[in-house]
């Protein structure tokens, strides 16, 4: 664990007081730290691996202690300071930075800094004194209840706060809403569903003063409540069922967190328990039973299910990005603060210095969200099973890992053998590659039509494991799941000799299979070309090659290891070349001829092609041989090894290369006897590591070609086919065992979640957010603007998540309670008292009525952080029960209704519209929880909205439909479901034409209005006006007016009449007409808006 040196902390405190030191610190921060960060810290900081010269320049202590050459500076004496000498580059042995000299001005700054005694900087600006604090950082005080004129209106103290503000502006509150409006409002507010006609009737009939209170209690007790309010929290928790960003993997187990949230709201779990469970469920004490543990582990999914850049290739950055996401989400969700801004610089508007950011970041960094940070990284999941089962699972997974390691060791060892063998035959590779190139110059034409001696359709094979295409244009679909796939054709030719074989392909670039003739591989297949459908060439005949055939029966075999390419037919034609002209050989044939490996040969061909004519290449002599070009330009150190060598032919030159290559290998092995064991070891000594090479620069250059990571002697991608039969068998066996183990993995429910990290540590400040430039270490602690400077230390055995949760739920925390009551208010009134529910900082909007907010937040704490108590408090007020009546005078004074002189009219949210349609149609399925995703955990899900999208066409409540990041359900998107990449406590309610298109033509509407129409018609106890009445009551919570009934009947009759000339049965026409009416009813704005 790294601790900040004590005397530096002392300095830091002093920096705030003494102005001279302050100036020095400023100078350092402004001028020196950026220079160190940019030019030095990559090699000279705590994060440097290796730490060059043992010198650290990321702390004052490090600078003073210095490195292997002694202290880096002598205070006040630039001339005597090693650091300055190094950057001035006055000494041959010590020239820094290695990438080039600093600018003169930069060197001058460093010298000036040393001159001034090398003052060090502060860990960040200190938070401001108490008196300058912003309102939201001061804990709420009990406000004085204001005096109001219209006392009769005050049902609850909260009314007094609102009324006082209204009266001050000369405004009066709107009259109460009628009972039908009120119950519709309350029912949607608490359950996201319309009231049933029975609910409305019961409420109308209850004329006692407690009637509405009873409605509220009934709704709060409904399981539908948690589905509605849980969803509000899921917005805040930026809940989704996939990762999003570039590697969009399925969070198959995210749904457990979602269900946990629903199940938390229903029994009214106190908010001061809800927070600790989400931040530190795994750390909470007692009771220790499994069910509680599972629930709490699941709760930490809150931290785990953010969007992550799983393909970030820098693991340190990936980890810090995840920490940042968690920190930002937690701060927004619980405190309404945008702490994320302080990652790179002190918060510009709120008193959150960068140091505080890294204090909090240390807490999350000391926790564990991920199993690894590889590309593509794997997140941690809790196994929801008893300990012995978890142990069993772990043991099983260890076994699988062991098998994988065993296979990979075997592959690496065999690769090493292949490579070592090939290196000895470098000359042969040169010759063969030269031949390939020469034969490439020979352009063969497909045989003229009718010249085929034998023509075979692709499906006419004698033996094979691909399907026979029943007709042209249909593919040879491999039968079975696993390759290799093959097809063998027997055909006869009269005489032995060379024959041309042509293939008719349906499309160019679709890849080809390996070609074997009479048991000999004659041509290796080509991989399909990506993007080939864009290729201008259509299919057609192409020449496979000219091959020797035996008299009589020959067997042509096509084989592919996993995807058999489609071809229509092949034909065998006479050798078109004149007598005496040798048939061009394929690389496969040449490999056979030279006794070398075809895989390496291809890599050699490719390498030669690309190094052609390059004078620095060690192969320059080979490349220009025979071209008449001189070797004068050859700039490789290898040139001197060929200086006096005059080869008589290619073979001699190749032999010379081979000898030298072998010599380089021999010397290398002698120099590093321990390094030739396995390929995996070689990897560590690839050339870009600073490992001493051979003393002879020429040989070293040759050796590097042989050992280059992407050089011609890298193991071929398909190297396995060249392994010995025994090894292949062994590998197959290992893989079979691995697969069997994988299939036998015991399955237990799992949940995404966070646990304590293996390393508990404080973090250094990351200058400008970069982990390459580290500043002083900051202790894990909370925001100093709230918690002050004197905070109890967090132990070095715990991350601090539990302490963070405890701090957040302290009664005197100025933000936690205010932020939550504001969220509750926002969902009842359409706008928060603080209109920016996620930002209580200076950039947020000021509360429209702070005494009201403070009064509510104190009540919230007083009533045991009960959210349901807050609903009752709010809903039983006069304010909540106001109508939305328009008041022209009030609009002039307060056009945005910030003072709440009336209730805000609100558009229903996406879920309420969709669920509402189904509920009205009698189609909604109330099965709670679970996942309908058919994907496996961690499976890729498309970023595209259409392909492979989950099946959203279910009648379960919308909260249980999956949310795929980057590919949201169309209905959700149309009606403003927020982007789930960020915590969001607010929603837009836009009015755009696609919403109208959805209501007019959308499949959800079509499907459920049909059901609704059928339901209405099945009501034999009702006549048509009765049915219309009933439909209005269900959809709009009110009876139809007489004029509306007439209009609806006319409309229905009109549609029915219009359909008479169609074939439909009368009954069907009637359903259609009623459905049309239902569609219209649900499309009316009265359904979508809440008065």
């Amino acid at each position, binding site marked *: 664990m790294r601790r900040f040196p004590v005397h530096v902390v002392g300095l830091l405190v002093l920096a705030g007081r003494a102005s001279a030191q302050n100036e020095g610190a400023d100078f350092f921060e402004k001028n020196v730290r950026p220079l160190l960060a940019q030019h030095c810290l990559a090699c000279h900081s705590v994060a440097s691996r290796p730490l060059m010269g043992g010198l650290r320049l990321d702390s004052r202590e490090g600078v003073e202690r210095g490195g292997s050459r002694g202290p880096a500076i002598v205070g006040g004496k630039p001339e005597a300071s090693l650091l300055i000498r190094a950057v001035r580059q006055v000494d041959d042995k010590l020239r820094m930075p290695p990438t080039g000299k600093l600018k003169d001005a930069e060197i001058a700054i460093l010298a000036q800094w040393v001159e001034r005694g090398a003052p060090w900087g502060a860990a960040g600006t200190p938070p401001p004194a108490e008196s300058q604090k912003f309102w939201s950082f001061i804990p709420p005080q009990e406000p004085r209840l204001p005096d109001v004129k219209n006392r009769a209106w005050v049902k609850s103290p909260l009314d007094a706060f609102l009324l006082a503000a209204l009266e001050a502006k000369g405004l009066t509150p709107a009259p109460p809403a009628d009972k039908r409006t009120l119950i519709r409002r309350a029912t949607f507010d608490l359950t996201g569903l319309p009231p049933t006609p029975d609910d409305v009737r019961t409420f109308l009939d209850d004329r006692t003063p407690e009637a509405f209170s009873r409605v509220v209690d009934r709704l709060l007790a409904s399981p539908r409540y948690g589905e509605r309010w849980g969803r509000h929290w899921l917005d805040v928790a930026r809940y989704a069922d996939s990762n*999003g960003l570039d590697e969009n993997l399925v969070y198959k187990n995210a749904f457990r967190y979602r269900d946990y949230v629903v199940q938390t709201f229903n029994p009214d779990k106190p908010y001061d328990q809800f927070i600790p469970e989400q931040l530190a469920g795994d750390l909470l004490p007692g009771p220790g039973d499994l069910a509680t543990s599972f629930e709490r582990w699941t709760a930490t999914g809150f931290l785990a299910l953010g969007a992550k850049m799983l393909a970030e290739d820098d693991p340190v950055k990936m980890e810090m990005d995840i920490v940042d996401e968690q920190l930002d989400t937690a701060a927004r969700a619980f405190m309404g603060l945008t702490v994320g801004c302080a990652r790179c610089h002190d918060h510009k508007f709120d008193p959150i210095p960068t140091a505080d950011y890294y204090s909090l970041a240390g807490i999350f960094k000391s926790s564990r969200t991920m199993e690894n940070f590889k590309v593509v990284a794997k997140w941690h999941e809790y196994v929801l099973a008893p300990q012995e089962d978890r142990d069993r699972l772990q043991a099983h997974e260890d076994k699988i890992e062991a098998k994988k390691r065993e296979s990979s060791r075997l592959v690496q060892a065999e690769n090493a053998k292949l490579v070592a063998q090939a290196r000895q035959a470098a000359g042969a590779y040169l010759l063969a590659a030269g031949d390939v190139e020469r034969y490439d110059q020979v352009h063969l034409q497909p045989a003229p039509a009718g010249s085929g001696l034998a023509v075979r359709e692709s499906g006419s094979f004698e033996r094979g494991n691909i399907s026979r295409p029943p007709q042209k244009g249909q593919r040879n679909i491999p039968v079975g799941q696993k390759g290799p796939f093959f097809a063998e054709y027997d055909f006869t030719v009269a005489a032995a000799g060379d024959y041309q074989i042509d293939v008719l392909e349906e499309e160019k670039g679709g890849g080809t299979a390996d070609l074997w003739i009479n048991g000999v591989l004659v041509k290796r297949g080509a991989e399909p070309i990506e*993007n080939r*459908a*864009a290729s201008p060439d259509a299919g057609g005949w192409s020449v496979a090659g000219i091959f020797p055939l035996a008299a009589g029966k020959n067997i042509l075999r096509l084989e592919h290891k996993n995807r058999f390419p489609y071809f229509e037919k092949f034909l065998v034609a006479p050798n078109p070349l004149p007598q005496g002209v040798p048939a061009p050989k394929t690389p496969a044939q040449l490999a056979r001829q030279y006794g070398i490996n075809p895989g390496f040969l291809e890599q050699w061909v490719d390498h030669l092609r690309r190094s052609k004519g390059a004078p620095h290449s060690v192969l320059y002599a080979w490349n220009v041989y025979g071209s008449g070009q001189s070797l004068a330009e050859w700039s490789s150190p290898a040139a001197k090894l060929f200086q006096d060598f005059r080869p008589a032919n290619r073979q001699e030159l190749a032999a010379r290369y081979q000898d030298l290559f072998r010599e380089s290998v021999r010397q290398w092995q002698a120099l590093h006897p321990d390094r030739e064991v396995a390929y995996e070891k070689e990897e560590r000594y690839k050339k870009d590591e600073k490992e001493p090479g051979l003393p002879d620069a020429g040989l070293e250059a040759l050796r590097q070609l042989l050992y280059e990571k992407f050089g011609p002697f890298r193991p071929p991608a398909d190297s396995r086919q060249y392994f010995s039969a025994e090894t292949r068998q062994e590998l197959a066996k290992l893989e079979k065992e691995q697969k069997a183990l994988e299939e036998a993995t015991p399955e237990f429910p799992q949940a995404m979640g966070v646990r304590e990290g293996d390393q508990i540590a404080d973090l250094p400040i990351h200058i400008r957010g970069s982990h390459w430039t580290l500043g002083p270490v900051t202790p894990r602690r909370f925001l100093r603007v709230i918690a002050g400077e004197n905070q109890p230390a967090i132990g070095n055995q715990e991350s601090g998540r539990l302490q963070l949760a405890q701090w957040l739920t302290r009664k005197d925390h100025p933000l936690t309670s205010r932020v939550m009551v504001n969220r509750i208010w926002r969902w009842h009134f359409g706008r928060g008292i603080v209109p920016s529910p996620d*930002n209580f900082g*200076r950039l947020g909007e000021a509360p429209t009525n702070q005494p009201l907010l403070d009064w509510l937040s104190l009540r919230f704490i007083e009533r045991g952080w009960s959210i349901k108590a807050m609903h009752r408090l709010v809903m039983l007020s006069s304010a909540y029960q106001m109508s939305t009546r328009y008041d022209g005078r009030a609009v002039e004074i307060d056009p945005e209704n910030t003072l709440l002189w009336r209730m805000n009219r609100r558009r229903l949210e996406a879920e309420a519209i969709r669920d509402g349609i189904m509920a009205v149609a009698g189609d909604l399925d109330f099965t709670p929880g679970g996942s309908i995703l058919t994907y496996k955990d961690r499976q890729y899900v498309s970023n595209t909205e259409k392909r492979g999208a989950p099946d959203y066409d279910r009648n379960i409540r919308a909260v249980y439909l999956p949310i795929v990041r980057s590919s949201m359900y169309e209905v959700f998107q149309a009606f403003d479901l927020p982007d789930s990449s960020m915590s969001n406590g607010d929603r837009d*309610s836009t009015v755009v034409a696609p919403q*109208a*298109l959805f209501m007019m033509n959308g499949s959800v509407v079509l499907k459920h209005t049909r059901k609704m129409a059928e339901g209405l018609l099945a009501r034999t106890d009702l006549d048509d006006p009765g049915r219309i009445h009933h439909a209005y009551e269900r959809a709009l919570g009110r009876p139809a007016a007489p004029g509306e009934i007439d209009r609806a009947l006319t409309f229905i009759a009109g549609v029915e009449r219009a359909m008479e000339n169609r074939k439909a049965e009368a009954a069907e026409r009637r359903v259609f007409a009623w459905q049309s009416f239902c569609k219209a009813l649900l499309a009316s*704005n009265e359904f979508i808006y809440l008065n």
Partner: protein
Amino acid sequence: MFLRTRREILAQASSGFGLMALAGLMAREGRAAPAPHFKPRVKNVIFCYMSGGVSHIDSFDPKPRLSKEAGQPMPVPIDRTMFNENGNIMPSPWEFKNYGQSGIPVSALFPHLGAVADDLAVIRSMTVKFMEHAQANNYYHSGSPLTGFPSLGAWVNYGLGTLNENLPGFVVLGSGEIPLGGINVFGSGFLPAVHQGSFLYPERDQPLENITPQEPDARQRKRLDFIAHADRDFLARADQDDQIETAIKNYETAYRMQSAVPELVDLRGESEATKKLYGLDSPNPGKAAYARQCLLARRLVERGVRFVELTVVPPKGLGGGNSWDQHTKLKEGHESNAFHVDQPIAGLIQDLKVRGLFQDTLVIWSGEFGRSPFVQGKDGRDHNPSGFSLWLAGGGIKGGTIFGATDEYGYRAVENVLTVYDLHATILHLLGLDHEKLTYRFGGRDFRLTDVHGQVIRGILA
């Protein structure tokens, strides 16, 4: 909520209620009727987005030095790349040729674009801060690597408003494949949702979600009248609520869209010569599909759609929305991708000119970054964010220009180094918008497309 005052509504209504209808009465727009800040040079933008990252050194930025030093290690230090399988210098497999009066060199990948080289302003010094697709795509569109920020097209519509009440103002054409980063790349972020990119899928039965009426027109008309009647009653009771007024109008707009969109995608009225010009007659399905996008782009700007973005049309099952991303097989991949887009885009430019639309339109061609001058693995190129090329053409653009330069290897921009913010500032400028004045207040802060950066690229302006 209803932040807009009646006064504002009335002020806007005077500019024609229809105009307001599609734009919608946004809950939080809080801004008077949109208008340019100064006289615009163009009215519309067509953005041909080459996602995946086109190789600049193989298209518009020839580097002879790469051939001379083929196979040699890069002589300058190189940053880590996406895959870090960095090999040695790889020359361009394509020849370059100087085209037109301006003599702009264009590689053999783009012979048709070469033929219109005198109309192009080629920028060779673009840079981006991110070397990974999702972040770079977001950044290139919104100035931020994160999601949740408005896309360029959304800002343009927010700034200028629509010219066609029956079509969305920001249309993304495509086959359904979208750049990595997801559909948020075309999102409206914190701007009102009306400004988000609307996808049109020319190849699909329903080019726009829910656009196909499920019943005969007469019956639908009857139903809409019924709804309108009910809504008017509701509106009367709701005291002329403006949000509801808009919602009511939206049914009429949606109704008209049902015919406007099919009319738009119906190309039967286009002459054979025009279709041929774009390459619609190509037997290659990818090219024909991209040609259809280009032709539709012209039809969209003809109809007043402000911002049209074209996405790549990758072959079936391969490439996804990332088709220029040749980490392997650069030659095959770039050749087929270029074959796709070369003739259609050149055809678009010619067609715009013939129809007098060129002066009112800005055409942009770019990917999210370039590709490395050194080889990746065997035969690919990795991402190169430190210097790459794009071009612009159309009204206000000085055709036949080359602006900025990369170093001798095409690795880093060294002359007139530009950022995406500069490009965005320039695009807004051409549309008559001052990028420093086009702001939107969100979460208590005034946001800009260009954040605190951006300078108009004067060197390419006519």
